[in-house]
């Protein structure tokens, strides 16, 4: 088990190193940020001074070496716009996004799993067909449109939930969260549902396919032949088998929930990293973009590692192969 974790860690470090190179050069060949930052009345000398102050006058390989040296110390540069450490900016906004993604993930499981199971176990019923039709909508409706419709319905017409922003936050173990108050939940409900919609559809489809397959397996028939109740067969025998692919996919999807919450955060004015990224891109704030991508890469890598570990906990066959290799 330890060798397995160490090997995965080494792979993770390699991925991060490769991303550092790609991201730095990728971002630095697009546009010249200096012309976004100066005011129109500056003369050439002032421009050159600003460039020097920001280190933009040096050759790109030198900039990269400086960047690497600083990155090793956890410093990904200062935001051109905010003048603050880019990584600090990202990490400061991170809890809001993580919170949103977490609630969306929980929604995806809590709503998607039972619906998918039902549709898989009773594929002929009318309700199942309805569930599947709705899940197609969940896949195909654009996020921004659904977000606007949600605001129109629940915030504007019904007035049940606030349309934008995040509730009051409390700090727990250094993590800022708004989920401890009713106000916080009211704020998170709409954006989280909007973000979760696609994942709910995904979980429905995965659970349905898994349940349909598992229901035909001999072990389910054998479990019935033992005289087990329907609830135990579904809740233990089928569920534990279909959780393996679902956990794998959802683990990866959590990364994409964080990374692609940009649209949802923009619509609901959620103060997360998605909005920060959008601002950074429009202003060519390179250090923030680089820091954002690096944080997301680290997040993805970490999640992948965790998924591997959970996977081996769920599937005993994986555990054995790793032990013998």
């Amino acid at each position, binding site marked *: 088990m330890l060798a397995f974790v160490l090997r995965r860690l080494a792979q993770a470090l390699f991925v991060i190193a490769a991303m550092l190179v790609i991201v730095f050069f990728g971002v630095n060949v697009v546009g010249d940020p200096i012309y976004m930052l100066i005011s129109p009345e500056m003369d050439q000398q002032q421009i050159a001074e600003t460039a020097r102050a920001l280190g933009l006058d040096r050759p790109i390989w030198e900039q990269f070496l400086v960047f690497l040296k600083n990155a090793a110390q956890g410093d990904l540069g200062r935001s051109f716009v905010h003048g603050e450490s880019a990584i600090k900016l990202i990490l400061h906004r991170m809890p809001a996004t993580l919170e949103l993604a977490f609630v969306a993930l929980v929604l995806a499981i809590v709503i998607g799993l039972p619906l998918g199971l039902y549709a898989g176990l009773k594929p002929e019923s009318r309700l199942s067909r309805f569930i599947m039709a709705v899940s197609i909508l969940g896949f195909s409706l654009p996020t921004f449109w659904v977000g606007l419709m949600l605001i129109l319905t629940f915030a504007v017409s019904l007035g049940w939930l606030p349309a934008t922003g995040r509730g009051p936050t409390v700090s727990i173990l250094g993590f800022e969260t708004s989920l401890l108050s009713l106000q916080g939940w009211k704020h998170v409900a709409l954006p989280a549902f909007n973000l979760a919609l696609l994942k709910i559809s995904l979980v429905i489809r995965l659970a349905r396919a898994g349940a349909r397959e598992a229901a035909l397996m001999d072990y389910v028939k*054998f479990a*019935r*032949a033992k*005289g*087990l109740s329907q609830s135990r067969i579904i809740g233990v025998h089928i569920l*534990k088998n279909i959780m393996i692919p679902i956990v794998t996919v959802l683990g990866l999807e959590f990364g994409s929930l964080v990374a692609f919450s940009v649209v949802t955060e923009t619509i609901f004015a959620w103060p997360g990293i998605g909005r920060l990224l959008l601002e950074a891109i429009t202003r060519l704030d390179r250090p923030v973009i680089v820091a954002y991508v690096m944080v997301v890469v680290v997040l993805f890598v970490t999640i992948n590692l965790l998924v591997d570990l959970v996977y081996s906990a769920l599937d005993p066959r994986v555990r054995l192969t790793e032990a013998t290799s």
Partner: protein
Amino acid sequence: MAPVLEVTNLKTHFFTRAGTVKSVDGVSFRVDRGEVLGLVGESGSGKSVTGFSVMGLIDPPGKIVEGSIKLNGKELVGLDEEGFRKVRGREVAMIFQDPMMTLNPVLRVDTQMIEAVTAHDKVSHKAARERSRDALAKVGIPSPEERLNAYPHQFSGGMRQRVAIAIALLHRPPLIICDEPTTALDVTIQSQILAEMQSLCADTGTALVWITHDLGVVAGLADRIAVMYAGRIVETGAVDPVLDTPLHPYTNGLLGSLPAEGEPGAPLRQIRGSTPSLARLPQGCAFAARCDYAQADCLASAPDVTPFPGERGVRCHHPLNLAGVAA
């Protein structure tokens, strides 16, 4: 003595888009206490569906449309799901063909055995575990205490089938339906399992319905035999007379196709053609098209069961070996 299982005119049909598949179409048989009935037939003859019908494990589009299944005098046809659940595992158990598939791969053996105990008996977790351990020991699994903590993939095929047998024996049911339980195993393991099943069932007085296509297994194990073809029992009787002097041309053909029967090097005899589609059975005898002895009346009408002495019966207009039966 009242039979353990009495199946009368059982009809299990599958209502598919391609038409009604009459997998089991008027099957009647009886199993006495402690008796072993060999249910023999080719793939698709309806022998497994008969077994699943008794277990109440026929799923839509399949349905028992007619007939009666009496287990210890209790009618099973028409029982609701909860009623059937109480019967399964306690009054009738089942062992499946492929031991690699019957145990849930992600649950430990103890979980799968304990849940089988507590499904019918309200006993403590500890007591259920002890009972499971004893059951494993009884079917010849070494160090059962440790093996309880193992996962199915850590067992060999033969060992898995032993676990399945141990699970089937947990409640000492009066009847166990065995759906080709040794087909997927090596010959040596097969004979071990057969011998053990025989002695375990003799100890507990458990009756068996042994579903198989292997006449060799039936010859060594069963007391009586029922040969199925296209959803019907075409010949039934005590094992030795049926195998020595088969009355039905189909039984005769099956025996003839055993490799051991011919001379070495001689081409194997076959039954020509293949089983008819169960969705479009002919008007006459279902076997007529493949039968060497078929006559005009065989194509015109399906034969009824003709009884013979010694509780033998055959569904044929022109039975063979009549001299052998009379003698």
